[in-house]
């Protein structure tokens, strides 16, 4: 089966700086893949390149069947990016924001209402202006916008940042739900305990390229544990590092 994400020797420039310098990645449908690496390793650039926001100038880059080297725009409608920026309008209410972004990507009105309910924003917060929300509530609003899109590929950049414990659990459950419904998830995180338990596979990055393998096995030499939140429809779990 054709991978959802196929990057081979991918090079992406930020200005003149090669943020990706020959990066390889294959992600199958229904997989949750964690990108791990130090600051500046290129994790965010991988996510943005997969969203068609950063041009891949060399190598192969095919996402959801769309060749990003030819035209990155067609893939955008099918991905959902939850990044550091929220993409929200401070002067509009939570409902206004989710409704606008939902309608922009031609989401079903029922999906927009369901998205608000799924992140717990269908109560009193629904009509609160986004500028008055806490960072975590803004993050939940962004998540609702992503849910309303029903993307085939979730691209999550530090998705747990700014969220309280319960909301992190809720986010993990939503990711599992999306995967069970056929979505694929690529996430970057520094919160490794939570992210690694969520992911089926870990890919190391360093200096914009795939890092050498580093053992993920426990120190006692036993086999790596399967992800506890693994979705039933997902491929068999494997905590591994791509060399």
């Amino acid at each position: 089966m054709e991978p959802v994400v196929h990057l081979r020797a991918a090079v992406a420039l930020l200005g003149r700086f090669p943020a990706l310098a020959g990066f390889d990645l294959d992600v199958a449908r229904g997989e949750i893949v964690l990108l791990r690496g130090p600051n500046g390793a290129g994790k965010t650039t991988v996510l943005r390149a997969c969203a068609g926001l950063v041009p891949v100038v060399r190598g192969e880059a095919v996402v959801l069947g769309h060749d990003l080297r030819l035209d990155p725009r067609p893939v955008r409608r099918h991905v959902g990016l939850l990044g550091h920026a929220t993409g929200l309008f401070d002067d509009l209410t939570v409902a206004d924001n989710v409704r606008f972004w939902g309608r922009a990507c031609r989401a079903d009105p029922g999906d927009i209402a369901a998205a608000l309910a799924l992140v717990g924003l269908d109560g009193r917060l629904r009509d609160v202006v986004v500028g008055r929300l806490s960072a975590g509530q803004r993050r939940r609003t962004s998540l609702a916008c992503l849910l309303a899109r029903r993307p085939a590929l979730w691209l999550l950049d530090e998705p747990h940042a700014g969220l309280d414990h319960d909301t992190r659990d809720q986010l993990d459950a939503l990711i599992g739900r999306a995967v069970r419904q056929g979505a694929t998830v690529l996430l970057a995180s520094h919160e490794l305990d939570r992210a690694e338990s969520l992911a089926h596979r870990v890919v190391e990055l360093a200096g914009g390229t795939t890092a050498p393998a580093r053992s993920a096995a426990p120190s006692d030499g036993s086999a790596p544990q399967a992800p506890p939140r693994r979705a039933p429809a997902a491929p068999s779990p494997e905590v591994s590092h791509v060399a």
Partner: protein
Amino acid sequence: MWRDAALVAGRDLRVELRSRVTTNQVAPFSLLVLVLFAFALDPDRQLLERLASGLYWTAVLFAALLAISRSAAIDETDGVRDALRLSGLDPAGVFVGKAAAVAVVLLALELLLGVGVVVLYGVELAGAGLVVVAGLAATVAVAATGTLYGALVSGLRVRETLLPLLLLPVLAPVLIGATRAFEAALAGVPADGWPWCGLLAGLAVLYAVAGALAYGTLLEGS
């Protein structure tokens, strides 16, 4: 495209209504400009009446700069530009929607300034047809050009100061055409104003088409 334009226009107008920047800041500022012109030229009441059209459109342009900056700022905040690119909205639709929202705000300001000119400068209204048509054409031209240039300078640290510097020279023909058309209407010789009105309509179409065609590239490049 039209569906996307309506969606974006509705959003921008809702942001304006909620933030009340136009009513609380832009409108008082533009009235203040009219008052300052009146203070400066008050000793010669006839001069004030004679220059009313030019002073009116100068005040409109100052107000337009603020309205256009506001409109551009909406898409500058916190990742909105990336979200727009990911949304699949037609860039031409986004342009038309943003320009339409700016035009609505400008029309409201022009109405207010029109009342101001009548009250402060003692201008007697005449040639209503020409005034309305010329006003509409000039408004579309200003809104379309402003939206295009707002996107052009977006992402630059110096955009607030660069925007007027780039925009005002481009809008000079609109200022001249609208002023001449209004002068002809107020002087009771509308026949002299219609050619200027034609120029304004041509500029409006030119800027709107250029904006709709170029906006996608600007959205990608910023």
